[in-house]
């Protein structure tokens, strides 16, 4: 198998994440209780998405400098897996909210509208839609080189919008999203407890490596397909 070492590392880290994530000690918070362990999954998805999108934009810039189509392929597939992680992050967040912050006394439809107004959710939805448009853009241009050039430029703008939409505006606005206003152990920059950090950092690496694995498989497959077409 191709490049075993980091794939084995991914498997080990994910196994560690699941085991230590469910068994390890966590801070006891009144509303969240055990669900705080979702940090190792939900938040890791978003971290993984950011890292994969970063790789994607770096590859896009490299394509624009070298015009090497392999960078274009890499850019597209890393963005694709990043989007998958984003959708999973959204889904896991919805499940988490349904069991914790959603008001159980209010019927689901009403509490949904309260939660959906959260700035971070809207920002994340906007960013994912921008990346969906990136895929649509790619499919709409038949000429291969034009497609690569135009979508690489679009990728840079799509990456740029991630920051105001997901990180800056939700912090500036009166956000209900946990973790932005000093909710301990969720504010991963400062307040996450040491016992959670021990599982969280390896988890980020493990999930990201898994995403990289999936993306590289897709890139290799597409290179193979192209070679078979032209040979």
């Amino acid at each position, binding site marked *: 198998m191709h490049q075993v070492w980091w794939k084995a590392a991914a498997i080990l880290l994910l*196994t560690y994440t699941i*085991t230590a994530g469910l068994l390890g000690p966590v801070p*006891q918070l*009144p509303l969240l209780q*055990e669900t705080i362990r979702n940090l190792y999954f939900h938040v890791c998805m978003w971290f993984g998405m950011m890292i994969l999108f970063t790789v994607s934009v770096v590859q896009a810039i490299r394509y624009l400098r070298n015009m090497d189509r392999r960078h274009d392929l890499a850019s597209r597939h890393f963005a694709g897996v990043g989007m998958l992680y984003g959708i999973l992050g959204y889904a896991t967040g919805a499940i988490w909210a349904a069991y914790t912050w959603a008001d159980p006394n209010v019927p689901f439809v009403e509490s949904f509208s309260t939660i959906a107004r959260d700035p971070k959710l809207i920002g994340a939805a906007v960013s994912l839609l921008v990346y969906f448009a990136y895929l649509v853009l790619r499919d709409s241009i038949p000429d291969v080189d034009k497609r690569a050039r135009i979508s690489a430029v679009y990728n840079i703008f799509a990456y740029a919008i991630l920051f105001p939409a997901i990180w800056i505006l939700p912090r500036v606005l009166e956000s209900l999203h946990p973790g932005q*206003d000093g*909710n301990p152990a969720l504010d991963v920059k400062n307040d996450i407890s040491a016992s959670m950090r021990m599982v969280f950092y390896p988890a980020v690496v493990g999930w990201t490596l898994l995403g990289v694995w999936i993306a590289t498989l897709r890139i*290799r497959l597409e290179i*193979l397909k192209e070679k078979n077409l032209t040979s």
Partner: protein
Amino acid sequence: MDRHPSDQIGDIKRKKSYLMKWTLALLGLLMHLSAFAEVNMADKMRSEGRIYVVIAVMLTILGGIIMYLVRLDKKISQAEKQNNQK
């Protein structure tokens, strides 16, 4: 540095909501304290043995996904080798 007046209002609002959140959290904690001895963590029920079922299920799912990826990886490596030999 001169703080713009609206910043101070924002500060007061932020401080207020921070205070409110802490008060609510404390109240919640106290209410739980009155009902149970501690925060209602899953310690008793889950740690008895059911948590291991959860872990086993998750590891099985992870194992299945990993096995699929390994299979795919080997197939692609094979095809690449064949392609290079052509």
